[in-house]
């Protein structure tokens, strides 16, 4: 299929349909309303369900209900709306139900702003709602990747029977880039959905629930969930290296839109004689800890720089991965302000200067 120019929000919506998610529930919020506006036209063409609910709380519970049928369900929102959905997401994780949620992150806390941010990292990666559960979180950095990851997300949701979140930001949602959809969509085979409520005609009635009053049963349920997350940590690690090589003095760690800005930084610094690499986590949960530690502890790496559109959230996971082997620095802007390549360049130059000053006496000792 030819490359077509699409807005991120619309491309993700189309990808959901291609992945067979023909059940969509929503509530309007900037900057992701285009998803709903696209799907309201597209769903009738594929015989799907489109419903605008009265609130995000209702949306989350509508997808909970719809997911119980065993069909693929999808919703999209932005930060304040996602906060309202946490109840439903916790219930879905507890009841082992799949769904895909798109979060086009905007600045927070509270009503915040509507410009791009990455300040929902903790909420997405560490839980968000109550209880012992995780979301699988994927963070695209281009529209094409957003399309690919959206389609993957539906597979992972079914594979793990767990909610999956696509963590984008306002830039991913609003930007237009050429995308290519595969002519036909195929994915690895999944086990039959024998857990779906389809009517107890030829089997015993089943109950889809997250209430386990007996503590032993509840613990068992949590252990089942935990095992799934451990499995995901083995099988679903995704990341990308950009210009990572032995000569690197600084390793940047960044995801989503921010990682692209860091790519430009690295390209610009190369002719000036600075060797910098980029490690870009694509799966934020499970986090590519082992791979990151390997790259960050290469012989020449003097320090690690985490760049985020937040006051510093993912940096905690990087610190955990690097575990003190290298100094971890942080640079971030927030509130909808996106760090410019120039700002990041300055940070790197400062780091390298500081390091070489400290490094000189060490050399003499040799």
């Amino acid at each position: 299929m030819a490359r077509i120019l699409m807005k991120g929000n619309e491309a993700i919506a189309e990808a959901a349909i291609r992945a067979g998610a023909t059940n969509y529930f929503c509530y309007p919020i900037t900057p992701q309303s285009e998803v709903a506006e696209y799907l309201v036209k597209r769903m009738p063409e594929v015989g799907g369900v489109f419903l605008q609910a009265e609130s995000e709380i209702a949306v989350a519970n509508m997808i909970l209900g719809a997911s119980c049928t065993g069909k693929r369900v999808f919703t999209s929102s932005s930060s304040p709306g996602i906060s309202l959905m946490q109840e439903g997401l916790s219930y879905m994780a507890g009841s082992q139900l799949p769904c895909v949620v798109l979060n086009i992150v905007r600045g927070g806390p509270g009503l915040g702003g509507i410009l791009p941010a990455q300040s929902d990292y903790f909420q997405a990666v560490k839980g968000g709602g109550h209880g012992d559960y995780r979301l699988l979180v994927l963070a695209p950095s281009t529209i094409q990747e957003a399309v690919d990851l959206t389609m993957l997300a539906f597979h992972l949701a079914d594979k793990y029977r767990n909610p999956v979140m696509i963590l984008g930001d306002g830039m991913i949602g609003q930007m237009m880039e050429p995308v290519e959809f595969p002519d036909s969509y195929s994915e690895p085979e999944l086990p039959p959905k024998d857990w779906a409520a389809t009517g107890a005609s030829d089997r015993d009635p089943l109950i889809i629930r997250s209430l386990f009053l007996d503590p032993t049963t509840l613990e068992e349920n949590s252990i089942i969930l935990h095992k799934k997350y451990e499995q995901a940590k083995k099988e679903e690690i995704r990341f990308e290296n950009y210009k990572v090589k032995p000569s690197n003095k600084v390793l940047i760690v960044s995801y989503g839109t921010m990682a692209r800005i860091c790519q430009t930084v690295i390209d610009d610094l190369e002719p000036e004689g600075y060797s910098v690499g980029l490690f870009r986590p694509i799966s934020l949960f499970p986090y590519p800890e082992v791979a990151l530690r390997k790259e960050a502890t290469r012989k020449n790496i003097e320090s690690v720089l985490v760049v985020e559109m937040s006051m510093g959230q993912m940096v905690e996971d990087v610190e955990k991965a690097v575990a003190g082997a290298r100094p971890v620095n942080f640079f971030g802007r927030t509130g909808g302000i996106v760090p410019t390549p120039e700002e990041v360049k300055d940070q790197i130059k400062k780091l390298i200067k500081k390091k070489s000053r400290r490094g000189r006496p060490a050399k003499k000792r040799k």
Partner: protein
Amino acid sequence: MAQYEVTWAGFGGQGIMVAGQLLAYTGIEEGKQVVWIPSYGPEMRGGTAYCTVVVSDSRIGSPIINNPRAACVFNRPSFDKFGPKVRPGGLLLVNSSLITATTDRTDITQILLPANRIAIDAGSPKVTNIVMLGAFVGATGIVSYNHLKETLKVKLGKKKGLLEVNLKVLEEGYNRGKAESKGKLRA
């Protein structure tokens, strides 16, 4: 040409976004990488609306461009905002129908184009953006004129009458842009 960035800016309703999109579509037709980013937000109606288009032969890194190689400004607030941001050696294309000011920068090329006037004379004030688009491509040659014409036919071809006006002003803009730049901005 490695990478070229151009910001389109003006009032909401001047067709800024469309002009940028047409350029992006044409870039795709030529097999290039493109990014189109709008300004979005609670911009007041009548305030500045702008979008940036990046056209490149290779993978595009940062979609955020602070200092573009060119700016096409349709009104005074845009002129004030983006005029100083154009990278040295770049192009500032000014809609002189609405902007009486000129830049005192000597490190960039400035082209003054009475786009509204040309559009009204051609029969529709709504095609101001196409005049500017034609002139931009004429001056820079980022995409080929023929491909741009094809894009217009595909994207704006539904209204036959308007398409003719569009093609007419596109050509006029293109020729003026080409003549004014004297070929020195060719990428």
